[in-house]
């Protein structure tokens, strides 16, 4: 056993500025390193390269020449790029609005029901959350099978119960394809939103509800004057997350309709448009420069809109 040296207190306090180096404190930084490296390589680095690439013309093999903002000009002024962009952009908005109206509203209602005293809460919670556990690609594949016009379960079911007129080529018609995919997307995500809403509902003090009931408020009134305002934070968070999700959306559409956003561009969103331009097809048609320009625009749209949404919600929050 080494002898312990006793350091006189005076010696330590004589140089109060020179604290011993706190290894523990900085050790924490070391633990952040792996995450920081991963984040840097897989998030930050690609983001920065995408911005740089968007200033170059690039056919896929070599980054040719610096062309400044030409890719952006092409994207917004030249046919068919501008039409395709506007078309895809509109679809992203449709995706968002329909998603909010269906997925979020349903999720909220489900959360309210589960929050009320029904039996089998846990069971329903699990059931609704289950689709979230499936990979998007699996969901896309499953629904492609279900919606198949000749052998799909949905149309067979509709026909067997005499609703032949409702049997549609769901994914093969410009009228139904996008809506179908949005609803599938909502189906897959509703459980997650429901859990967030449920958590928020459970954080409200029960006494408030009791007090309201004693005062004779109807259930309807309680929901609109107490529950919704008090869960506004969760609603705000979910709206923003949905917004980001809807503008980034790609996998499900790609899994079900490929990158062409078919039929006839009716399910084309900025994500698929980006993919087509940046990676082309087996036969060519690749332009990484233009693709990167879309990626940058997409990033700006999401970043700016999210900021605006957050400021808007925050203001509303303060007013209350």
């Amino acid at each position, binding site marked *: 056993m080494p002898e312990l040296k006793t350091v006189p207190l005076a010696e330590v306090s004589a140089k109060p500025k020179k604290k011993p180096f706190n290894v523990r404190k*900085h050790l924490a930084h070391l633990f952040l390193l792996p995450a920081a490296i991963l984040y840097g390589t897989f998030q930050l680095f690609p983001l920065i390269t995408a911005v740089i690439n968007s200033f170059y013309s690039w056919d896929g*093999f070599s980054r040719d020449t610096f062309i400044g903002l030409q890719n952006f000009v092409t994207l917004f002024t030249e046919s068919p790029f501008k039409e395709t962009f506007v078309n895809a952009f509109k679809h992203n908005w449709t995706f968002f609005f329909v998603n909010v109206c269906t997925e979020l509203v349903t999720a909220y209602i489900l959360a309210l029901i589960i929050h009320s005293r029904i039996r089998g809460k846990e069971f329903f919670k699990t059931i609704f959350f289950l689709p979230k556990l499936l990979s998007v690609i699996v969901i896309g594949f499953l629904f492609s099978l279900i919606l*198949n016009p000749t052998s799909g379960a949905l149309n067979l079911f509709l026909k067997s119960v005499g609703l032949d007129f409702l049997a549609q*080529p769901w994914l093969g018609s410009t009228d139904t394809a996008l809506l179908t995919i949005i609803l599938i997307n909502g189906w897959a995500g509703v459980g997650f939103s429901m859990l967030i809403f449920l958590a928020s509902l459970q954080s409200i003090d029960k006494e408030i509800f009791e007090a309201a009931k004693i005062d004779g408020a109807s259930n309807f009134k309680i929901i609109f004057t107490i529950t919704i305002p008090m869960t506004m934070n969760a609603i705000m968070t979910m709206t923003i997350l949905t917004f980001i999700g809807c503008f980034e959306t790609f996998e499900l559409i790609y899994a079900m309709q490929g990158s062409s956003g*078919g*039929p*006839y561009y009716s399910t084309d969103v900025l994500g698929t448009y980006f993919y087509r331009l940046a990676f082309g097809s087996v*036969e*060519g*048609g690749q332009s990484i420069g233009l693709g990167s320009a879309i990626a940058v625009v997409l990033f700006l749209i999401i970043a700016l809109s999210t900021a605006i949404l957050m400021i808007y919600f925050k203001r509303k929050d303060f007013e209350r």
Partner: protein
Amino acid sequence: MKVKQFLIWGVLLILSLAIVGCSSKETSKEETNNEGKTGEKTAEKVELTMYSWRPEDRDMYEKAIKKFQAKHPEISIDFQPYESTEYNTILSNALVSGDGPDILQLRPYSGAKTIADSNYLLPLDDLKEIGNINQEYLEAAKGSDGKVYGVPLSLNSGVIFYNKEIFDKQGIKVPKTWDEFLAVCEKLKKNNITPIAQSGRAAYLLSMTHAVIGPDAYGHNDFVDKVTSGNTNLKDPNFVETVQRMKDLEKFFPKDFIALEDNDAQTLFYTGQAAMYINGDYRLATIEGTAPDMKIGVIPGFASKDGGEPVVTTWVDGSYAAAKNTKHPEQAKLFMEFLASKDFGQIFTEESNRLSAVNGVTPKHPIVKEIAAAAAKNSTPYLMLVHFGEGEPTTKTTFENALQGMYLGKLTVDGVVDEAQKNAERAAKK
């Protein structure tokens, strides 16, 4: 304190860079070691890496490589196939990073041109055996400078497969012209058999059908020459006629065919619900694999007039090229010569039941033989793929998506032609 923090962050940053750096150094060390080894052994043994997008052809290549090694035992070939859908990305990354393969498979036409123009390939004009391949096919592997950069491997043809049993039962004679074909379709439809198992969810199958039924309406190679030399364009009434034909065929396609996948269409064909199926001849293996008992025949193309010869739509599917920065250009060229030889062509066609691009190779399979014989007499290029494969998006893509739009009631026949022509003009400007 701030200085210290700064120092710590600095150290961490350097550490992280060092970790990344070390790992890449290690690999590069290994590489040089390997190179050193192979370098020493040059006299004895050289290994060439070969990229392909057809993992399913491994057996065929192994046989072919054995044959090659019988003459050149000092050269071994490392066949590295990748999934077709991933291939372009893998190849471009490998080429750009500089440690690409020695031999690589080239996508035809504009795909090959892009790589050749980026200066990644060795010109092969002086290759001994290159004369075994038709000039027309060499077009698939040329750069903008007109030099040949690849040895075309296989030819694809767009054909109409038909169910022999259905044709026999209905007493249908195999149609030779468009008018006869329409009559056959009418008859089948009357008897409640879907005439053509067409799918439209993946739009490329629409332009495939167009490539098979169109050429005799626009006048085969005369039109191709005119359109490539700029003497006419897609708005030519003869070309418009081909799109009108596509429109006319709609009633012979399955219900909701735009929602059908190729698999669904094939199922209709296998189960006898549909009598014909249009696709590349490479589907033959799929059909025989899935429905081995089915008796199928092939309509290789239409003749312009009654009694004329059918004209087959053919195109080169892929070529092999030698990378410019290969360490062993001599050996790579030896292998390229082998790929252009009849020996290889014969192995290829026998093993894969597909058409070889090498002249004078005779396939074994009767159907492949029939197509090859017809193609040797009269062939026309897949117009959209061969001459309209440029631009972002390509005119071919625009055209087939527009066809989808036509079937969905979004575009007229002229609208389809308009969209395609506009895109072609834009692509030509670049």
